[in-house]
């Protein structure tokens, strides 16, 4: 569409066009104008709140004076904060690793299903991802219910002891990670499936002729061809998982003994429930520089490989 609009047939009668007209005919101008609604939306809904959060994080508890990095300094001295840092890293890294492995394996299974039945499987496997997490987590909450857990009921039928899914720190951490993996794996699956489909068949044929084993085909053909997608998916998922809120909030509300709090839920507890909005803002912003640096390196690597190709 932009190409059509930018077309400038030679010998057009209005050779003497105004500067503005010229500007409007440029591809980049049209692209900018078309992206403008989205830019405005992002500015209003993302950039402004992010900037405001930075501003809030520099205020004292009463929001009456500027304290610079005072809130961050305060956080560094709190045991609970470091517990939250540990739990957030454990939650995000473990969940992303499992989502990537499960997504990779399932993508291969789906890729090998004959094309006729593949669509149904793809649709069914995407279900956990398309249900709003707050809703599906409620279903998990009932499965993990302290007193009436359906899972424990099944365990009891099989003669096993019930598990305190959300009542004991270790199990509660396991439960929130499990639900996150359940919800997020389909995203990895669909991304990896798309990547798999774009690997040229000739590469596998050539590898087979060279006598490559199943593992060698994966290691030397599939993985290098999927590297960029794997990096982007992992990065995207890492950011989203670090920023998770709903799963922990619905399932454990950060308990027991703060053992499942992640940045989002603890920021909410401190800022909104506890009335210390600047400290809550500081908690929620803590990961921004770390994730920004990670994103820069990963994206730079991808760009580098892209230009090599």
């Amino acid at each position, binding site marked *: 569409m932009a190409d059509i609009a930018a077309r400038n047939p030679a010998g057009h009668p209005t050779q003497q066009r105004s500067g503005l007209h010229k500007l409007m005919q440029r591809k980049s101008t049209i692209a900018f104008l078309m992206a403008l609604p989205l830019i405005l939306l992002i500015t209003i809904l993302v950039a402004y709140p992010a900037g405001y959060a930075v501003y809030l994080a520099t205020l004292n508890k009463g929001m009456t004076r500027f304290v610079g990095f005072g809130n961050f300094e305060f956080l560094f001295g709190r045991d609970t904060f470091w517990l939250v840092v540990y739990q957030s890293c454990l939650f995000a890294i473990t969940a992303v690793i499992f989502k990537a492995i499960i997504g990779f394996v399932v993508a291969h299974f789906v890729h090998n299903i004959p094309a006729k039945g593949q669509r149904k499987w793809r649709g069914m496997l995407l279900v956990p991802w398309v249900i709003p997490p707050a809703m599906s987590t409620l279903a998990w909450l009932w499965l993990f219910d*302290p*007193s009436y857990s359906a899972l424990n009921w099944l365990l009891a039928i099989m003669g096993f002891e019930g598990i*305190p899914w959300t009542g004991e720190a270790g199990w509660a951490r396991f439960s929130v990670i499990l639900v996150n993996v359940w919800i997020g794996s389909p995203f990895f699956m669909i991304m990896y499936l798309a990547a798999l489909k774009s690997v040229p068949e000739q590469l596998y044929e050539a590898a087979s002729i060279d006598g490559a084993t199943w593992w060698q085909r994966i290691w030397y053909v599939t993985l290098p061809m999927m590297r960029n997608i794997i990096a982007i998916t992992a990065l995207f998922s890492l950011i989203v998982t670090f920023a998770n809120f709903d799963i922990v909030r619905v399932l454990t509300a950060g*308990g*027991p*003994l703060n053992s499942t709090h992640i940045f989002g839920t603890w920021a909410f*507890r*401190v800022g*909104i429930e506890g*009335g210390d909005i600047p400290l809550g803002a500081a908690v929620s912003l803590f990961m921004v520089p770390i994730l920004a640096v990670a994103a820069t390196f990963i994206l730079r690597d991808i760009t580098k490989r892209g230009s090599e190709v």
Partner: protein
Amino acid sequence: MVSMKVNRRRFVAGTAAASAALVAAPFVRSANAAGKLSVGFWDHWVPGANKAVEALVKEWADKNKVEVSMDFITSQGNKLLLTTAAESQAKSGHDVLAFSTWLPSRYADQLVPMNEVMEPLIKENGAVNGTVEYLGKVNGKWLAVPATSGSQIKGPCSRIDLLKKHAGIDIQAMYPAGQAPKADAWTLDNFLKAAEACQKGGNPFGIGLGATSDSVDSAGALFHAFGAQLVNAKGDIVVKNDQVRQVLDYYKKLMQFLPPDVPSWDDASNNKFLVSGQGTLIMNPPSAWAVAKRDAPQVAEQLWTHGFPMGPKGRYAPFLPYFWGIWNFSKNQSAAKSLITFLSQASAAEKMTNASQGYDLPAFEKLTTFKVWAEESPPKGTLYHYPNPHNHQTLSIAAAPAPHKIAEQIYTQAIMTQMVVRYAKGEAMDKTLDWAAKELEGFTRN
């Protein structure tokens, strides 16, 4: 959010006769007080309870020719809390808003002083309990008016049959309907024995130790019963004291007789536990009983709401008030005060209490003997002792008397229940106290 518009009429001088009526007179008397009023009420979870509030507001609006828009904002998912925070930040929103327990003090600088409303109300309806005064009045200034709708006592609600069967306690004899309690034997020692007996009998007590309000309130009342303070009224951290050690020891014993999953209970867990027929006793307002009446009538007819057991320093029960406050950015403050005054009259309070099946509690001492509490059934009189009609127990809030900014953090971060669980799960007493002291130290920052 449920939204409703009432009446579209201008407030004109011609309504002077109406505005001269009882409650409106001091406030709505000039054209400046006319116009619109926007009110955000707490969305009641008892079906039909909002209707009573709507009807009352409509009556007031008709009388005063003020256009009122009402929103019923749920506290589920902290919607009301978020609305309050957003309005505070934006300095725009409702004129009158329902503020939960700690919010009047949190937003003290943004609320219109309500002394001129509270003083006549106290004269008329009697004094308010100490907890309401602690939460709603700061530096001699009333920041908000205690609301009937949503205010509650979280006292014990017990199974008559199971307490008798397992522990030999006749709770109806201790708390007879229509009479003062005869509960001298209802002490924390006997409470512990009863908890043990009921647990052995297969129907344990269900007292949560999670991070939500029900758990924190129960712990708060027991801490008060031992005189155990974490931070005193001056703001000094005093957590390492004998009373705190005693209450932690007591809770450690009690926890052996509670379901093992109580550290992960939320505010719904205890209700489910009682309604399912498993539990003998929970700490809750009559919402669990109301649900049982609908879903498990055979359980409901065995439920009795009564007072807390007495500890070494007295008998305390958690009181959680809602407040109605006026933002200082409200453009119609006199009409707002008039509406709140109207809603705080005895007749209005009784209508709200009736519509909520006795759940709502006015905070004023002369308003604790409405018929609904004596007459609600089954069994008849089950709610008689719910509003504490004989002042049998001190109504309290966890973390009081600490300064509000610290107490609110103790409450919302569930420091008491966390201490209990840490110690009960085997952590050394000194380590638990050190942990608490460090957390408390963090709450004192300005």
